[in-house]
């Protein structure tokens, strides 16, 4: 089988001692940084971009695979032990994980999260192995009008499915698209919105924007609050392992989590965080021990954690095969690819075959390493949670600066990151989501490229997007995805309105 040959070659490259060491380093550093409270995978990855920068492309991506899994697991740890989710999709883990930790079963919660993530990651990677080449082939025949429609669909779903204010989400998205149009136009060579600043010719440096929006705004958030209200950390008592009964209660939720997470994650649509919430609700409905929920039911950790891992690994499918990231984390991954002038998309599997298969092999390896290394060392990682918040935040800002500087060696980028941090801080406080800004700025250029190609092919006829059936259907779905949640929310708000004013 062709796929297996490629995969074998990928393993051959990934199992080189140097690449193994990089995967190990990635998993370790990823966990180390991801376990710090408040640092989700997207923040962790954008902070750690510079560490990979001196490596060759393959080495960097191998390490990135490790960082990715490590930072996700680190995020689950803070969700369970401190009630601090690193990202939206870890929120369900706090519902049962934190009560478990308070009951003295923190070790079991961390184990079911780790083993569940491992199982989910492995099953999902098998899925990626066989699915990605197929989708990549399909992707090659996608015409510009349809490509445009798919990206619009991804944007709309990211914006409309999460959060309560569609208008704020759209505003964030358009700000991102606005950031994306700056720089020299690829087709005509004309400088757009550069205001004579040479640093802007290549566009607004998106790594700086990402570091600012994620890391610097986090630091500003910390300084804006009064100190001394750090959530308490629950120490792990006893053995870090599950009892026989806990194993029995975990495996079915894992499998269900995967079944929900992978299909949703691998769609070129936003909402990679939805499966974890879905999984939580399903496990709660199916459970025979309703009285345990809210007090630490292990199914409520096992299911969402597996779903989370399956879904975020699933985002690799649209990222690698279509070049469409559907989460902030995937967007940062795309930036990492672009640093090496690699453009994920339908041609990736032809042009960079060796690299892609090494990356996929590294996903298997990173996953296994995470399980083997982290579980025994979890007590060590947990010690990091005791670091004072003041030192942590100060350290994060130094790393943020280091990261931005090392990519461009340009102080303009550093100041831009600080500025983006301030904007991100104020925007977030007012309920504007950050993910659409990043996705808009990263994907905007691709959207424009497909838009212009589609209109060129139709000799300037703008109706091409609705006259082609496939593109019309996808755009129609986008409209549904945009307006249905809006209408539903309006109805809920109207229903809740009397209670709100009465309370």
């Amino acid at each position, binding site marked *: 089988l062709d796929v297996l040959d490629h995969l074998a070659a990928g393993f051959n490259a990934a199992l080189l001692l140097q690449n193994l060491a990089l995967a190990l380093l990635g998993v370790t550093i990823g966990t180390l940084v991801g376990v710090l409270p408040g640092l989700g995978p997207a923040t962790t990855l954008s902070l750690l971009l*510079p560490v990979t*920068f*001196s490596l060759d492309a393959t080495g960097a991506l191998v390490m990135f695979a490790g960082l990715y899994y490590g930072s996700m697991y680190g995020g689950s740890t803070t969700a369970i032990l401190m009630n601090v989710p690193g990202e*939206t999709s870890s929120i*369900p883990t706090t*519902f049962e994980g934190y009560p478990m930790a308070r009951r003295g079963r923190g070790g079991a919660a961390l184990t079911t999260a780790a083993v569940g993530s491992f199982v989910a990651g492995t099953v999902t990677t098998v899925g990626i192995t066989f699915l990605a080449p197929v989708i990549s082939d399909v992707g090659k025949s996608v015409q510009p009008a349809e490509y445009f429609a798919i990206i619009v669909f991804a944007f709309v779903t990211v914006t409309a499915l999460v*959060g*309560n*204010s569609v208008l*704020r989400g759209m*505003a964030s998205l*358009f700000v991102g*698209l*606005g950031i994306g*149009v700056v720089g020299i*136009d690829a*087709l*005509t060579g*004309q400088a*757009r*919105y550069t205001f004579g600043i040479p640093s802007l010719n290549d566009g607004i440096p998106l790594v700086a924007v990402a570091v600012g929006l994620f890391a610097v705004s986090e*630091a*500003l958030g*910390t*300084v804006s*609050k*009064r*100190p*001394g209200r750090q959530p308490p950390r629950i120490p792990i008592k006893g053995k870090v392992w599950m009892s026989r009964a806990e194993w029995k209660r975990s495996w079915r939720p894992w499998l269900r989590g995967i079944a929900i997470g992978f299909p949703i994650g691998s769609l070129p649509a936003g909402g990679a965080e*939805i499966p974890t*919430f*879905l999984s*939580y609700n399903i496990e709660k409905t199916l459970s025979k021990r309703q009285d345990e929920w809210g007090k630490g039911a292990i199914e409520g950790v096992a299911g969402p954690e597996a779903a989370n891992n399956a879904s975020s690994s699933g985002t690799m499918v649209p990222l690698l095969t279509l070049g469409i990231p559907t989460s902030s984390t995937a967007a940062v991954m795309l930036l990492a690819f672009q640093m090496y002038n690699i453009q994920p998309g339908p041609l990736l599997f032809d042009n960079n075959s060796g690299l892609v298969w090494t990356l996929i092999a590294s996903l298997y390896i990173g996953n296994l390493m995470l399980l083997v290394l982290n579980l025994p060392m979890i007590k060590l990682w947990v010690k990091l949670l005791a670091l004072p*918040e*003041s*030192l942590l*935040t*100060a*350290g994060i*800002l*130094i790393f943020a*600066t280091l990261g931005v*500087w*090392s990519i461009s060696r340009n*102080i303009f980028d550093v*100041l831009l990151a*600080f500025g983006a*941090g*301030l904007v991100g801080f*104020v925007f977030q*406080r*007012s*309920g504007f*989501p950050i993910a659409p800004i990043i996705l808009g700025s990263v994907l905007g250029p691709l959207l424009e490229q497909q838009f*212009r190609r589609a*209109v*060129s092919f*139709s000799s*300037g006829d703008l109706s091409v997007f609705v006259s082609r059936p496939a593109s019309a259907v996808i755009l129609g779905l986008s409209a549904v995805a945009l307006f249905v949640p809006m209408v539903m929310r309006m109805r809920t708000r109207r229903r809740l309105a009397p209670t*709100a004013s009465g309370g």
Partner: protein
Amino acid sequence: LTAATPDPGTEELDAATTEAAQKPASWETMLCAVLVGTLGLVLLIGSRDLDGGLGYQAVGPAVFPQLVGLGTLTCGVLLVIGEIRRLLAAARGPRSAAAEPDGGTRWSHVAAMVLVLAAYGLVLEPVGFWQASGVLFTVLARLLGSRRLIRDAVVGFALSLTVYFFFDRVLEVQLPEGFVHFAG
């Protein structure tokens, strides 16, 4: 009130933005709304200088920015209108408690951090990475509530020097050297 026990699944997912979206009008949201609108205007006005250059093009370089600008401006205007409506409603309705539940935002600290970061960015090249970062760490730790100056300075300079040597010498990411030259 049976609605008081929300289903944690979907409710929490929305909680972060719901809270802000349903808060009474604030100068912050207004500021964001105006910023969004201004960006839209800048995009639209700036696109007038863009022309297609030579040769026939179905879509020139100005079209997409114009569409984005239009969308951005529309979002900005709708947000501003929403905030004004909320302001009017707040003026008519019963006065809600002005105090924020979280005990207030320390804007002075936010401003101080922004200024410290701006200064740090400006002196980074002339002063050097580890020198400026050591000082930055110490100052920020204090701003963030730490009261152990000596410890913070020791940690700050140890961290900065470690990072400097690892990145500048091992990974060969050139960092600003500044006024102290290390051999090697």
